[in-house]
């Protein structure tokens, strides 16, 4: 028996499109073409494979009414008990702090403005990504240096009401800064009223009138950013496969994307709010999925991606990232009873009465409260029947 040609395989398999997910069609085509090279595939065998794929697809479909939400919540919640509580761990890049396990998962679902350990992975464009020194240079540029990082000593001279900063030579060299450059930045930041004198590596800042003002000034000066990107406190350059990648502690996605040499397509942060603001809601959804699955995977827990996608979709349907909890998804439910049964019972009831809200009792909690069947699964099926005799009559 002779086999069918690759063209026939292609055209036959592609007929499945629309009926079976594209990913499956592509995989089937790839597999058949590969196998076809080794042994002949008869027309009949091809048809049988196609039929089998169709059948496998059909039998894998979810049933209408399935409570996919609850299953997803359980699938993510149940392994929570098995996760570690250790907040900080040294994983992947040994030098950086990463929040992992249960605290990280909770943080993602809370969509906190600032994650406890913000982290960016900065990919670089070709000339920079291939060369360690060029990558280093960019990393230097990114890392935030404050006055605090440079001073070896800081005195408050109460006699003359001035601040005395001694800069460390070695650190200056390391950060590629000079005392005069520091002065430049300081006078820009502090305004023209402040008088700054440079004597070798010593800086005299004179401005304050009173003692408390001097102290405030000292605190302010310490925090002044001399160079780098705001909030990026630490950078590590690491070789990953063929290219050099920069990892940063602290995240400022908007600023990083503006920089030259940064690969804007792949560079990413673990701060979902930032992604939402800068790249939009679709990107935020993907970031949620990625962060959740990597957190779970790192803990060695296997959770189907579909559950994670559902959670991410629920958090982002409204066009903005909403928290899983009373300030987000749960707090915006349509049912008064469901909201009252979750948290802050009284407030929801009182508000509902002023607004004259009506609870249509379509959800799960409300149905349980009122003693109705739950509108999911077998309870979602309704029959139209002639009324009349009830069961016990």
């Amino acid at each position, binding site marked *: 028996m002779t086999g069918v040609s690759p063209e026939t395989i292609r055209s036959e398999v592609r007929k499945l499109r629309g009926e079976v*997910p594209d990913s*499956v069609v592509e995989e*089937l085509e790839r*597999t*058949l073409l590969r196998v076809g090279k080794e*042994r002949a595939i008869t027309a009949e*065998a091809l048809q*049988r*494979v196609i039929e*089998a*794929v169709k059948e*496998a697809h059909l039998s*894998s*479909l*979810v*049933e209408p009414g399935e409570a*996919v*939400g*609850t299953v*997803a*919540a359980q*699938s993510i*919640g*149940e392994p*929570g*008990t098995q*996760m570690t509580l250790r907040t*900080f*761990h040294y994983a992947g890049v040994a030098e950086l702090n990463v929040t992992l396990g*249960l*605290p990280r998962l909770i943080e993602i679902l809370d969509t906190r403005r600032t994650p406890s350990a913000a982290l960016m992975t900065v990919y670089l464009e070709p000339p920079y990504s291939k060369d360690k020194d060029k990558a280093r240079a960019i990393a230097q540029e990114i890392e935030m240096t404050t006055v605090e990082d440079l001073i070896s000593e800081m005195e408050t001279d109460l006699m003359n009401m001035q601040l005395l900063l001694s800069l460390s030579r070695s650190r200056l060299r390391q950060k590629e800064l000079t005392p005069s450059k520091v002065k430049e930045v300081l006078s820009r930041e502090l305004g023209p009223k402040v008088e700054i004198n440079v004597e070798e590596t010593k800086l005299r800042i004179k401005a304050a009138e009173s003692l408390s003002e001097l102290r405030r000034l000292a605190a302010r000066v310490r925090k002044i950013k001399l160079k780098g990107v705001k909030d990026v406190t630490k950078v*590590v350059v690491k070789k990953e496969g063929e290219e050099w990648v920069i990892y940063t502690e602290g995240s400022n996605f908007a600023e990083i994307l503006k920089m030259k040499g940064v690969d804007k397509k792949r560079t990413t942060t673990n701060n979902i709010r930032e992604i939402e603001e800068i790249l939009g809601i679709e990107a935020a959804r993907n970031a949620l999925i990625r962060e959740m699955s990597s957190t779970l995977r790192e803990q060695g827990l*296997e*959770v189907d*991606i*579909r559950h994670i*996608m*559902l*959670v991410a*979709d*629920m958090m982002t*349907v409204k066009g903005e990232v909403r928290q*899983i909890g009373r300030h987000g998804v*749960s707090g915006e*439910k349509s049912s008064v*009873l469901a909201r009252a049964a979750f948290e802050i019972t*009284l407030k929801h009831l*009182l508000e*509902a009465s*002023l607004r*004259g809200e*009506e*609870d*249509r009792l379509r959800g*799960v*909690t409300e149905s*349980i409260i009122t003693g109705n069947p739950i509108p999911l699964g*077998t309870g979602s099926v309704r029959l139209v029947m002639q009324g009349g005799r*009830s069961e016990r*009559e």
Partner: protein
Amino acid sequence: MRPQRVIESIRFSLLSPDEIRKMSVTSVVTADTYDEDGFPIERGLMDRRLGVVEPGLTCRTCGGGPKDCPGHFGHIELARPVIHVNYVETIFELLQSTCRKCGRILLKEEERERLLQEMEGKEEWWKVSEKAVQTAKGRQECPHCGEEQEEVKFEKPFTFMEGKGRLTPSDIRTRLERIRTEDLRLLGLDPSVRPEWMVLQVLLVPPVTVRPSITLETGVRSEDDLTHKLVDIIRINQRLAENMEAGAPHLIVEDLWELLQYHVATYFSNEISGVPPARHRSGRVLRTLGQRLKGKEGRFRGNLSGKRVDFSARAVISPDPCLKFDEVGVPEYVARVLTVRSRVTSFNLEEMRELVRRGTEQYPGAQWVISPDGKRYDLRYADREELAQKLEPGYVVERNLRDGDIVLFNRQPSLHRMSIMAHRVRVMPGHTFRLNLCVCPLYNADFDGDEMNLHVPQSEEAQVEAMILMAVQNQIISPRFGGPIIGGIQDHITGAYLLTRKETLLDREKACQLLMQAGVEPVLPEPAVVREGVEYWTGKQLFSVLLPKDLNLTYRAKICEGCSRCKEEECEKEAYVVIENGELKRGVIDAHAYKALDKCELWDRMVKEYGVERASEFLNHVTRLSIAAAEMLGFTTSIDDEDIPRIAKERIEEKIEDAKKKVRELIEAYNREELEPLPGRSLRETLEMRIMEALAEVRDRAGQVAEKHLTLSNPAVIMARTGARGSMLNLTQMAACVGQQSVRGERLNRGYVGRVLIHFKSEDLGAEARGFVSSSYKDGLKPLEFFFHAAGGREGLVDTAVRTAQSGYMQRRLINALQDLHVEYDGTVRDDRGVIVQFLYGEDGADPMRTDNGKAVRVDRLVEKIIGGGAK
């Protein structure tokens, strides 16, 4: 029976004084509850028109007894109006954003129009109202009548000031009355609600059924907290009325008014900040309306979302490997109490008659008979013989639970749907529920005193639904990851290993014995070996009896050591498993074959390709075979399994000494500041990391030494290596060295200044001073080591406790956020409102439970089966 009614929706609103009076059956004026004879006083708080709770009495409004009468509301006419505390903040906003003279909202006409427009058709229109109120607030002059506005101040808890003068609730009420209905939406109120209703003139008195009094054994009556509070209100209200009538000084009236306000406020909520909570005479804080609804044990979470049920039982659990994994052993004394409603038909008439005759006295009997006209007969008292004769199709018998009934079995915390499953009943002697060990991982159950619950579904519909959707067999595949979650555990694995390793040879008697115990017909294949005329069978042959005849599979067993060059079929450790046409040719059966929550290659294939029925049968047989094998071949473990030879001990000690020396060197290097810091770390941190590294390494080294002497001839090692229980780390800790103890991921370092215990010098950074345990568990820990170990162990305990609380709350939030999502007939995922969350569930519409570890269609397998397999 009354026609059944379904609540379709619930509307929330405020009650107007008129409505309160209309729904009230009586006004309550007397503060006393009962007279000397113990009869409820008319127009008192226990008035018989408000409903009855004690049996034997009838309600004077509806004539029903305590079972039929739902209770009726009464009311109290307040002498002076008071503010409803829960609405003070709303009242404050209303006063700030409306004109003091004309009552219009302080918005210009165009602003009003614009905002109303914006509101139009919005589901959450009140979000616009918030904006409107914000703009209107604090406007100096009324755009409508030009009246100059004075600033209204709110003094907690319920005093309002305007300029210098105080606004009494009466003033406020008249102000609120002036607000026009067309402005209400802009103020965040529904037009059906009048703002002045937030200032109460009439107080609704809940029915007696809501606040039942309890009679103690001594005959003393104890009233509900709400009744106490209402008594206070009535008393003050009366005094206020009397004083007003008598023309008492202004000051006294004001005081009483304030007191009335306090009582009414605490009646609604007893947790208002700035208000001392109302107390019972004994000093206990009263639990008033607000507190009744709130929190975990409140009305909503405690009674409405979670209800108590009949037809349930709870008992301690214990294991029974002889049960099928979908069965549950129910003690007879439980089965005697629990009942199932059984309809009498022409097919089971005689059987039912017999059950009725046996009644409650003999075990398989019945408790109640319900005649077609709905009358219930209690078989404890009825003439059972007569009833049995009267029985005919149409009757319902509530018979005792018996073998084969479907029940739901549950263990808390119910973290996933496998925490409640449908089992079949096996009535047995004893006092505990019995369950097969294969389902333990799903319930997360062990037998150290765990208790579980059992529920009996009553209607046929419920039973069928439970059987189809919740049966244990249908939960073998976890919806979490699309792989088996039920499987063999512990001895199931060891037994199978002992049976299938190559040295196991069994004569005819033993082989038949094993198969019989497994529950299979002992049809033996050709003997593998015949020695001196005696026939012998290998364990692999016996195991193969259970396999389907067309199964082909190769994989690496758990015991595989990952040699650099795999000898595959020649593996002398039997780690390469080959199953050909349902025959186990090579390799041993261990955790990778069928352990729950492990790789379980064989078991996974069985479930997915041969279906649930065949797979369940296999699991039932294989677990019993394994246990029988373990019993027959003998398996035990004891402390001397961790014995290692003296030479090994010495080697380990050497290694530990080396490591300690290395630590000392590191510390010296640190002191001389010669240590090279790791990037981004301080010198001290670097030192700690290097020391930790060195000490972790020595534990592993010591373990490796010990492992050389811990071979597969050792039962403890068999358990660890086959994946049945325990790990090699556990064993080496027992045999060789426990290793470094840690708290918060660091070596122990807290305690005294610079040292953990006084036995060390301050700033001693050495291995022993910071919690390195060089002894093994078997040898025993030194006192100081014991202390360090306890510190590390304590952290573990605290961690678990915190984690359960945190993950519990996370799961509650997740469930609450997602519970309404479901798949519609068109394949979309929607919430209760019909909002589409996903257009196609999971982007491919596949149910994770029906996928192969997440893959909906196993293209490779299908192709192999049809083309590759056919070509072979």
